[in-house]
């Protein structure tokens, strides 16, 4: 009998989140080494529409668990429901997103099931006969391969690490597979007074104009002091339709407002050009800007993980490099203007 893999689908407002399809890519990666069944689990107060979407887009079986009290994510309810489900029907691998909710329930779930847990997984590989899961350490400076002999293994997948699964069977349009997966429906009427949901507050980055800029220049802890943010502002001023941003720590320090924070808990951006200055390139920041058309990184540390995703890598002190670059730019402008002036007088 093959190894069984369960995927806990993430969904918001009736829509399936992209990371859910990335989880399927991870499950298929596991399946390549250890053939076995895959099954989606989807929890919520209203699971019908997302369950339908999942089964038509993936062709995999879906277990829709309707929990009337679960209109919003609630860690206590998730843990209760999932440990009950997986104690009854054991799985070898249980895959969850490394999201605010997955991070919240996965470690406890693994313990409740007497298994192991690996968070922030980026990939699966087979090495020396063992199935290994790859994750980042030290802010992305190192990668580790982890393996386990005691199941079940509960994993959380770093969003954006794998290419989302898309069906190859093109016969029914780009977003459908030929055979819809079966949907099993159940109702679980559980409550938990350990944690009671009391509403949601909007993000301080809502309405930020970052998402509309063509060019974003961002500063990180490498600016070292609030006043040095003016380097970032001056560099941004060279570009039309530009905006300035930053990493989370410099918002935490109140050097810039949270509306300028780029990353998973700030704004996700995809400008034509992103210039990261004094930013190490932690996964939570990178996930918010890696779809930029072109990425330039300035960092004193040649090992900074941001260089793994940059198109142009500049190992320099930003405090020296930025003023220098601005000066070089102005000189070039001046020369160009002189040439233009000359040209015009020639014509006259």
């Amino acid at each position: 009998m093959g190894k069984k893999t369960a995927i806990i689908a993430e969904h918001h407002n009736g829509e399936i989140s992209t990371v859910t399809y990335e989880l399927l890519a991870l499950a298929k990666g596991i399946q390549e080494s250890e053939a076995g069944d895959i099954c989606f689990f989807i929890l919520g107060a209203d699971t019908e529409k997302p369950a339908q979407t999942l089964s038509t887009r993936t062709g995999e079986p879906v277990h829709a668990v309707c929990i009337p009290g679960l209109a919003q994510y609630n860690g206590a309810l998730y843990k209760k429901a999932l440990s009950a489900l997986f104690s009854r029907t054991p799985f070898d691998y249980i895959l969850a997103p490394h999201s605010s909710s997955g991070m919240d329930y996965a470690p406890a779930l693994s313990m409740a099931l007497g298994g192991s847990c690996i968070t922030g997984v980026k990939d699966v590989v087979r090495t020396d006969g063992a199935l290994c899961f790859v994750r980042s350490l030290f802010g992305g400076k190192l990668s580790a391969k982890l393996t386990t002999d005691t199941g079940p293994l509960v994993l959380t997948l770093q969003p954006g690490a794998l290419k989302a699964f898309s069906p190859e069977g093109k016969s029914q349009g780009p977003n459908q597979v030929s055979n819809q997966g079966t949907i099993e429906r159940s109702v679980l009427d559980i409550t938990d007074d350990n944690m009671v949901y009391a509403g949601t507050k909007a993000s301080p980055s809502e309405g930020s104009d970052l998402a509309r800029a063509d060019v974003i220049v961002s500063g990180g802890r490498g600016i070292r002091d609030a006043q040095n943010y003016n380097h970032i502002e001056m560099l941004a001023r060279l570009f039309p339709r530009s905006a300035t941003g930053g990493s989370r720590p410099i918002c935490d320090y109140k050097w810039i407002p949270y509306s300028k924070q780029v990353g998973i808990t700030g704004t996700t951006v995809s400008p034509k050009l992103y210039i990261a200055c004094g930013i190490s390139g932690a996964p939570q920041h990178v996930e918010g800007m890696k779809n930029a058309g072109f990425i330039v990184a300035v960092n004193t540390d040649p090992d900074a993980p941001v260089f793994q995703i940059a198109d142009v890598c500049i190992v320099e002190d930003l405090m020296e490099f930025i003023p220098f670059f601005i000066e070089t730019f102005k000189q070039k402008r001046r020369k160009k203007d002189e040439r233009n002036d000359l040209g015009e007088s020639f014509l006259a």
Partner: protein
Amino acid sequence: MKILVCVKQVMEGESPVRVHDSGKWINPCASARFEMNPFDTYAVEEALQIRENVPGTLVHAVTVGPESSRDTLRRALGMGADEAVHILDTGTGYRPPFLTASWIAAYAGGKGYDLILTGIMSADEMNGQTGPMIAQSLSIPCASAVLYEKPGPDRTHISIEREIEGGARDMFEVKLPCVLTLQTGINAPRYPSLSMVLRARKKEITVIPAGVFVDQEPGLRLHSLYSPQKQRKGILLKGTMEEKAKQLMDILAQKALLT
């Protein structure tokens, strides 16, 4: 209220990390410097702020690690913690968060802590597992990525806000005792004052060898450690600063990003 704060010693962010010859863990170089996990400074600060608001509150700090990690407990005492406990682990290899959490839970169980605070993750391992696992071992609730907390007047509940994607916050009423993992920005961690540092130096630290706890299967094995590959075929600019500035200008002009 009785509060336990979990603090971990980590290598300073800008220290170079090198893989040990065995490929099984890291080898701190001679120049490496260590500090309290920056994410944990928020947990210590939050506990101290609760003590300022709730009379009679006690703040204890706990760490799991080698002899040298005791410095991190001194730091917590210097910030103002009342007592410190060192769960001494003399092992030098990889220790999965499951073991760390099991030991902290084994220590904390039955001691009447109303609240256990951790950072959102450790800067070196970035697991985000220890807090939620402590809660599971003790069968108490846990909320992660917390950006606001306020204990209720009757001390049976705590109101919290936890951060979700995009920076929005979900609000919950959580039953005490519970574990909270704190997100950065919840407060501005204080620096220890000189007088506090001197006082902290004289404080007794309780040491518990990890061996006293029930032997448990760690579950996970570290197969290997290595430097990751580049994802984009980026170019590294070479030469003097002048040459680099000029090259960058040319590249941006070529791409019509700066004219």
